[in-house]
């Protein structure tokens, strides 16, 4: 995690990160019930990075995506995307933000595309909303990029699921946003098509330098991204960094290293498996060693056993 010191000497999370979430809280009401979707989430994404956000249902990952997409306003905390502070935006800035800073790809193909427009017209729509002219040439370029130029005149109901997601990606790229947010983009696709879509996302990242955040349940995603952030109970719990290592037979293997996240208050979320294994409950003992901090259950002796 990168830290920078502000003028007052207090550590500020983020610094030069492309996406910066600092103590993000989001509370909403359903009937008479208040739901705390995010409970002080911290997250940094660097420019040109491709990360995946994983978590169980109800962990808050969709809420995080909505906030970063400008659809929801956080209840507390800070969210900055490409220098745009989402907590301080007015309605007009938010509209401009959705047009120019982020592109969104939903899981459901029906939400990505307007059913009564052809593929190329769907790609043109964000440009028309932004007031641009001569939208057709750029739309064709984007459809070429995603590999579906030959179906430019087809309406969504004539396209397969994979083709629709390709068009959806082209729509998301229409106004050259620096950030693409994808909510389960392969949720309705088979594994082969999913792989194609992930490949496309990597291609977009490589060719256009777009920062990409993918929310997913898909286990395969770890092979496709550089970092996987796990969210639990409205906070980031772990990060897994992936790197490819070539092996002797010319192939490669993915080396993943998991880190627990330490927030600004010094709080740490232990993996559930560790908690259950050691029967950790309510309070634990800590001991500072020379190069690490030990954590013991409450009933352990002075030597940690």
């Amino acid at each position: 995690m990168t830290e920078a010191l502000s003028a007052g000497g207090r550590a500020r999370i983020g610094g030069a990160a492309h996406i910066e979430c600092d103590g993000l809280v989001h509370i909403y009401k359903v009937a008479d019930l208040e739901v705390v979707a995010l409970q002080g989430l911290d997250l940094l994404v660097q420019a040109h990075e491709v990360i995946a956000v994983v978590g169980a249902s109800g962990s808050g990952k969709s809420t995080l995506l909505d906030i970063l997409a400008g659809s929801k306003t956080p209840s507390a905390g800070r969210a900055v995307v490409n220098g745009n502070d989402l907590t301080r935006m007015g309605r007009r800035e938010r509209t401009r933000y959705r047009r120019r800073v982020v592109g969104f790809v939903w899981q459901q193909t029906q939400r990505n595309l307007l059913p009564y427009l052809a593929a190329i017209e769907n790609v043109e729509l964000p440009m028309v909303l932004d007031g641009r002219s001569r939208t057709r040439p750029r739309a064709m370029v984007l459809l070429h990029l995603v590999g579906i130029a030959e179906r430019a005149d087809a309406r969504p109901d004539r396209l397969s699921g994979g083709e629709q997601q390709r068009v959806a990606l082209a729509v998301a790229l229409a106004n050259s946003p620096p950030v693409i947010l994808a909510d389960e983009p392969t949720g309705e696709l088979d594994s082969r098509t999913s792989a194609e879509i992930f490949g496309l996302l990597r291609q977009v990242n490589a060719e256009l330098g777009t920062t990409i955040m993918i929310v997913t349940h898909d286990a395969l995603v770890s092979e496709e991204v550089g970092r996987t952030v796990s969210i639990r109970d409205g906070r980031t719990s772990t990060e897994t960094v992936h790197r490819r290592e070539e092996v002797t037979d010319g192939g490669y293997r993915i080396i993943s290293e998991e880190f627990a996240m330490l927030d600004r208050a010094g709080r740490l979320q232990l993996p559930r498996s560790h908690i259950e294994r050691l029967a950790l409950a309510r309070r634990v003992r800590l001991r500072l060693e020379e190069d690490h901090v030990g954590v013991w259950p409450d009933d352990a002796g002075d030597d940690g056993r």
Partner: protein
Amino acid sequence: MPSVDWLALGLARLRDERAASAAFLLVVFVTSLLFALSPRLYERAREEALTTELADARSSDRGIELSQETRIAPAPGDAPTELIAEAGRQAELRLPGSVRGLIAGRSFIVESPRWLPVERILLTTVILRIEQGTTDRVRYVVGGPPTGQVEMGSGAAVFQAALSVSAAAALGLTADDIEAGAVMQLERDTSDPLAVSAVPIAVRFTGLFEPPVSLVEDEWFDDLSIIRPRIRRFSAEDSFTDVVVVISPEAYPALFAEAADPPFRMRFAWRYHIDPARLEIDRLPQIAADVRRMEGLYRDRAVGPGTESMAALQSRLLVLIERHIERWRSADLVLVTAGTGPVGLAAISLGSFAVLIATRRERSLATARARGASMAQVVGASLVETLVLAVPASLLAGAFSLWLVQGPPWEPTATAVALSGGLAVAMVIGAVAVRARSGPRGPDAPRSGRWGSYRRVSFEVAIVAVALGGTLLLQGRGVGRSPEQATGPGVDILLAATPGFCGLAAGLVASRLYPILAGLIGRVTNGRRDLVPALALRRASREGRTGPVLVVLVAAAMIGTFSAAMAAHLERSTLAVAWHDVGASHRMTVGGGALPTGFDVSGISGVEAVAPAHRADAVSQNRTRFEFLAIDAMALKQVIGGTPADAAIPTALAASTADPLPAIISNEASPSGGEPIAPGDVFPLTVAGRPIMFVAVTTRETFATLPVDGPFVVTSLAAFRALEPDLELPVTDLFVRAADSATGALRDAASTVDEGRLEVRSEQTNGMLFAPIMVAVLAGIAASALAAGLYAALAVAAAIGAAGRGRMTEAAQLRTLGLSRRESLGLAVIEHLIPTLVAFTLGTVGGAGLFALVQSSIGLQQVIGSTLEVASTLRWEYVLLLLAALVGVASGGITVAAVAERRVRPTTEIRRGLE
């Protein structure tokens, strides 16, 4: 292919939503058509009614007569009466322009002062008259018309004259006398101030004529003086007979110069015949104002040469016009009150369609917003699309209405078209804006609480408050505005909308309470094994989906019941008024007089019972005028027993002798000016010049044939005669109970009496029921009720359509659990049946109750033209019709829901529902 633009986007969306677009277009077209057509039809009906009312009125009532007692010298040459005609033309020029435009014909008469036959005929005078067009209107049976030749005989000028058969009889002349050219010597009637300078003259009768078959042509101006001698009463018992004989216009110079020294004044009357077809509704207030001004103008202005006497204007045109305006103002009140409910339902229907359209666009709106569309772009795009549909539909409807009912008025049509189209567009844009504002995630926005948002609760509370307050104000103040305050139709629109607000308020309350009722019924059905009712009722009690449908059904039921009550009240009141005015199935009277002694119709086939009565004026100690009616109580009971005129006459009035006389007296009557008379009180009245003591047996609000809003006394004819045996109490009214088949014979019997009249209750009822105003009002009420039902059906269909996606998802989930299609249909039936029954019950009770509260305030009685109060009622046929309509609306909803659920593909809908 060119780049996409906003118009292309909009048209693409409309193409994609063909069904919803077509439905919206149809609703806008129908709404605009109804709104545009209604005022046109109403104005057309009103115009025809005005023409009919005036055409049916007597020509002297609708015409204008200017009369003056003056001298007008004869014109030289061949047209001695030319100056008289010229005076009439000059007078016409001084009439207001709007009145001049109504005149289709002109005539004048000239009458000499009264003369007495030298050979006296008791209480009979002779008047010489010049009347235009007489020769063409009568048929000579002896001799021919007079000429202008004037002879000199026995020192007196002898004028030629012709007279009618009745006039000859009054003068004791026979046809042989006329044929022989009888001469009658006349001397001046000193009682006539005009005859001051008259010298004796004579008339030679040249012809005897009979009246034509019909005496109602406009040319007569209701003046039959030359046909029937005039009766001039100078006391209750005594009268003069003025016989009018016709002389030639060429005799005018001689009459002017030779019959008097110096020339005497004569009575001139200029008559202006009004053509009813020239009256236009939209100019009526202006014409009324001009006629009013005209009446003031001629009070102090002479119409002819000389100012010996003031010109008198006689016309009931203003009365007819004002009566028409007043009655149709009442019709305005009734129709606006009946119409605001359906207008409100039309708005709800349009709103439901707007919500349906916005719901169908929800996903597209969310996608567009997520892609960066601003609110202005989203709303702007929807505005263009909606205008593409609404504007042509409205304009087409307006053009169609102009084609269907041609001619003015133009303004209400244009206003209606603009309003309905504008309202439709505004509602769609509003619904779209609300949907778009909920953000890119659209419907995921959380609901705000068990009772809904504060805004919604406040809105509902406000509606209920407006309904309650409006009801109280309507009850107290009425729905009309005073003529001074009225700048439009004289209707307080907000108060007239009270029934609509009450319907809406009742619906909102019902939608709040319905879940409780459904839950209670659900608890009962829980104990049974049948899952369907339990599931349907649990769903109804826990989810708010029934709400919008229930609001519409309750509002429609209440408005429908209110309209039905209005129509039933009008019909019942018409019947009651006819029975009150006639008093029996038939009634015979004589214009201003009495039936001949011994006049009897009981022998006519079909006559079941006859009851004589004596009608007169009575005066109390404090000079209050009472309507006095002495009846044969036993006979009258036989005549009116079992009919709506049956008045439960006290047995005391059957007494043949009594002192004081037993009497039924009107409520609140106070002969002495103090406390109103109560039963048992004794009071005096002067009847036929005699002081009579009465004892009140009972008090009544009304009594048949007596004015509703004035004091009256009814007593025993036999007892009155016994008390005052020397007082002549002739029979003025003969109440008859007879079958309709006897009407012809009764009418013939009446015609044998001079000025005898027969009133037939059934004819009066039909005349009132089929009067143009009643037809217009009843048709308007029926049309309003029909429109209310139509819009309720549309609103329910739209509400079900808007809830369609959620319903289909739920149906899909239940189907995967094993619910059969039949059970699914059963769910839909129970879900709609119970709200229908609730709506019917609540609506019927609420509508009838509201009508009972406000019936006297909405101008119904003024439409009929009577202040007789009639209890409100509801015809069971209308109630059944209402139930059938509600069931029809609910069935439509069930059908829509069932068809939709039959097309459910469970997996598709469930996947959609999980999004």
